[in-house]
């Protein structure tokens, strides 16, 4: 079994490496664009006007209530075929991009991440203490200034742990790209299994790489959390039971 592992790692290391790079690429783009898209969604979602609130509500509800793999198939096969049926599209220069699963994956992951992040941002925005908003208004801040100076900084502080979880969720979600023939980490592992019939070695190697990514991310995000909360006074209890380590 150990020789098999060395064999897999030695012969297919470039596949795993490229898979790793693609996974990171999908993750970074999805999280960045998804978060940017989530901000207007969340702001609209907390609006008091029903007609502004309705659209982001429906968007978040649908994307959080359906499986990601379904969303991906819907985009890649469903929307993909609707596009393919347009007359003459296959001779158009955009066709190279329109049939590439990469763009469908990215679009799906960005929308999905946006829905989940918008929902936690909504919670963060609604939990900003009322007194701070009143103080901002008393100082004569306009709504947009209030958002920039008061609400957003506060929101980030509050949602950071949940946001970290969401980034990890998105990382794990990128593994679904393998179902539409993308060769990211899981896709690479599946292809190795198809070649060598060594499921343990290939899948466990990929799993270990995922674990390394997850715990590197967790570590980095913890550091940022400390930075975000730098202005808070720490009140550490002097004695008492040691807190159980939470995962």
């Amino acid at each position, binding site marked *: 079994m150990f020789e098999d592992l060395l064999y897999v790692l030695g012969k297919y290391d470039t596949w795993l490496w490229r898979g790793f790079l693609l996974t990171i690429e999908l993750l970074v783009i999805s999280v960045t664009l998804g978060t940017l898209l989530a901000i207007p969604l969340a702001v609209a979602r907390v609006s008091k006007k029903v007609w502004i609130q309705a659209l982001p509500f429906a968007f978040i509800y649908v994307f959080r209530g359906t*499986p990601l793999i*379904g969303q991906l*198939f819907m985009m890649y096969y469903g929307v993909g075929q609707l596009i393919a049926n347009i007359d003459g599209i296959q001779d158009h220069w955009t066709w190279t991009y329109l049939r590439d699963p990469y763009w469908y994956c990215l679009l799906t992951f960005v929308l999905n991440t946006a829905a989940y992040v918008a929902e936690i941002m909504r919670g963060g925005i609604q939990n900003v203490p009322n007194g701070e908003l009143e103080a901002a208004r008393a100082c004569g801040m306009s709504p947009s200034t209030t958002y920039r100076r008061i609400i957003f900084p506060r929101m980030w502080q509050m949602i950071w742990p949940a946001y970290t979880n969401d980034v990890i969720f998105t990382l794990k979600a990128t593994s679904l790209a393998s179902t539409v023939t993308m060769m990211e980490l899981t896709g690479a592992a599946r292809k190795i299994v198809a070649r060598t019939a060594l499921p343990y070695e290939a899948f466990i190697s990929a799993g270990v790489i*995922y674990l390394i990514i997850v715990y590197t991310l967790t570590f980095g995000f913890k550091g940022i959390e400390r930075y975000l909360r730098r202005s808070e006074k720490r009140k550490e209890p002097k004695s008492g039971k040691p807190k*159980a380590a939470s995962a």
Partner: protein
Amino acid sequence: MLDLYGRGWQMLEGGLVTVQLCLTVLPFMIVIGLLGASAKLSRYRTLRVIGESYTVLIRGIPELLVILLIYFGGTIAVQSLAELISGEETRVDIPAFWSGVAALALVQGAFASEVFRAAMQSIPIGQIEAATACGMTPMQIFMRIKLPQLWRFALPGLNNLFQVLIKDTALISVVGVEEIMRKAAIGAGTEKAPFTFYLVAMLMFLSFTTVSLLVFNYLEKRAARGVARA
């Protein structure tokens, strides 16, 4: 349109399999979650380490990878075990349904153990001390004091987990279990109408998650009925 090229029944059958998957995983998820939580809160270091590393491992690995590992790896493991016992070459096939159930129970159990751990820690320590003073054994304390209250503290977390579970069953379509997603893929392929079939599949999932949400909200209200509200 409505009968989906005569495949409407197929989709409903798929829906039934999805419901079966969810309800089969649920008890395993709860048992594994309770065991995991007890291990994490155990006074024995070894058990705590096992409990913690289980969550740490599962949390960092994509569900799809776990499903694939158990589907492909599980067959080999069981097969070599069978060969070891019988001493001759045997062919074993684990049904995809059950390997999917095993994978999901393993994944959801890890998250459930976090939910139950938090719930167990919400039970006032004085009640446990009182029960000990009354001479109850740890098992009696668990059955009489902890379990009935655990339910109330754990419900919001379980609500979330069950939502995730419903959505995760769609992943099992990858190993060929004919639940909603798989049926939709078959329909989409043979009838050349992917948009329609996946749209129906998504609507089915959306209705499942909505029903689950409503049921859990009702249960949460019911479980809190004996508690004074602030």
